[in-house]
């Protein structure tokens, strides 16, 4: 690919992290878990995560991150909205159209994309292709999650890992040599591993989600050791493939951001790709695994620190339930990321929210209950980028 080939260019980066911080000690205490802060840090790399207040939905985080990405790009317009999420506001309809409406985007195409933790890169690859095909020219790609609504607080393997948050990027037409240009993408799946990461109930195969069902089928479950093996192998292979598509050697990569699933998985992938620790970036220590929001949040946090030179060769890779995996080669964007707090919908519209464990959710009564649409964005308050782990 020459440097002047038409390409989708990341021109805006947005993030939304709920203000409520949940420490490892709190996770252990709440779930009466047989573990410790030290065990969680050693096994996962996570020290704390964020949790959306009761009544704050995935769409509320997505709207904030999307608005922040628009502000980052200095525009109010996008002509397509793609929302990657595992935790939509409702089973039907998709969350994306309402987010587009709340952002004032008009009657643009808007849809959800379900690829679990690979969702954002699936979305980025899809938006890149749609832009280059002429379907749209300013697609807004958002990854947003409220895993606190699907994770079992009594399950050590997941309660200690996942957090809430949202990240977004706005794309525009440009050239492949520009900072932010998407250079190549690679996507894959293997449905034979569909049971490794799943919520058994709540879909058409097993619609019943009433509390009388056992926790094993009501809540998100992940078979960690098997996932580790697949995640390392698939992210490594997919990364090598996308680097080949881009014509880049792994030692030319200056910024590597893997899905923030587990620090040890990230270390294993980077080691196999022979990417030096100083070129690896992430935020798992401070926000945990935020699933589809993971990559854009890490991208935003790293960009906010100015840790990578715009234009530097960048490798993004993810793995998730499905099983799914995805990798994108891009030039590091030049956009300065913006952060916005969650944008809760009007209180009256939230009365239908029911969580599987609503009584144990923390209610943050200080959270704003009014629209924050016209509020001035606060200064960037990013999660610290933590790789290499200190």
């Amino acid at each position, binding site marked *: 690919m020459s440097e002047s080939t038409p390409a989708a260019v990341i021109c805006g980066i947005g993030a939304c992290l709920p203000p409520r911080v949940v420490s490892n000690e709190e996770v252990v205490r709440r779930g009466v878990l047989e573990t410790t802060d030290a065990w969680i840090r*050693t*096994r996962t790399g996570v020290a704390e995560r964020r949790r959306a207040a009761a009544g704050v939905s995935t769409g509320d985080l997505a709207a904030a991150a999307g608005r922040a990405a628009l502000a980052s790009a200095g525009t109010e317009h996008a002509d397509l909205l793609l929302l990657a999420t595992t935790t939509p506001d409702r089973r039907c309809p998709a969350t994306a159209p309402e987010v587009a409406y709340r952002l004032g985007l008009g009657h643009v195409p808007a849809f959800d994309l379900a690829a679990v933790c690979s969702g954002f890169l699936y979305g980025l690859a899809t938006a890149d292709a749609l832009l280059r095909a002429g379907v749209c020219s300013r697609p807004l790609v958002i990854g947003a999650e409220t895993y606190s609504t699907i994770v079992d607080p009594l399950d050590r393997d997941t309660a200690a890992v996942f957090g809430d948050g949202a990240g977004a990027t706005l794309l525009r037409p440009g050239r492949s040599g520009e900072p932010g240009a998407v250079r190549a993408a690679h996507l894959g799946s293997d449905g034979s591993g569909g049971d490794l990461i799943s919520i058994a109930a709540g879909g058409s195969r097993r619609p019943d989600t009433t509390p009388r069902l056992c926790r094993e089928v009501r809540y998100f479950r992940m078979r*960690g*050791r098997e996932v580790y093996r697949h995640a*390392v192998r698939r992210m490594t292979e997919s990364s090598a493939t996308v680097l080949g598509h881009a014509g880049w050697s792994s030692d030319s990569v200056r910024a590597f951001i893997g899905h923030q699933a587990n620090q040890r998985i990230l270390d*294993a992938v980077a080691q196999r790709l022979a990417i030096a620790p100083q070129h690896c970036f992430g935020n798992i220590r401070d926000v945990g695994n935020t699933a589809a929001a993971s990559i854009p949040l890490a991208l935003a946090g790293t960009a906010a620190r100015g840790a990578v030179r715009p234009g530097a060769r960048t490798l993004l890779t993810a793995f998730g339930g499905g099983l799914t995996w995805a990798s994108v080669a891009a030039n590091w964007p030049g956009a300065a990321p913006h952060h916005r707090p969650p944008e809760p919908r009007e209180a009256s519209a939230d009365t239908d929210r029911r969580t599987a464990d609503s009584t144990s959710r923390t209610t943050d009564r200080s959270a704003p209950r009014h629209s924050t649409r016209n509020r001035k964005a606060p200064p960037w308050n990013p999660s610290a980028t933590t790789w290499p782990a200190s």
Partner: protein
Amino acid sequence: MESVRDHLAGVLTEKFEVAPERLTPDATLAGLELDSLAVVELFLTLQEHWRVPLDENEEGASELSLREIAALVEARCDGSRTGGPAPGAEGPR
């Protein structure tokens, strides 16, 4: 040709930072303080290097001794047409 035992020892000392003097044939992975994810990573590393199928989820994998693990890899190399160091493999990774 590199032996499985030498490779296993190299991986344990370089990648998992196990002190060389602890690497006796009867030492188990649990005894060497490899946790369950480390055991998965070790088996994945051996599988990639020797190009043989290894099921690291076998019951009691942590209780296998280094002698038993080396024998397991050797047996699968012998029984596989593709077994042996991966092309370009240069010691522990």
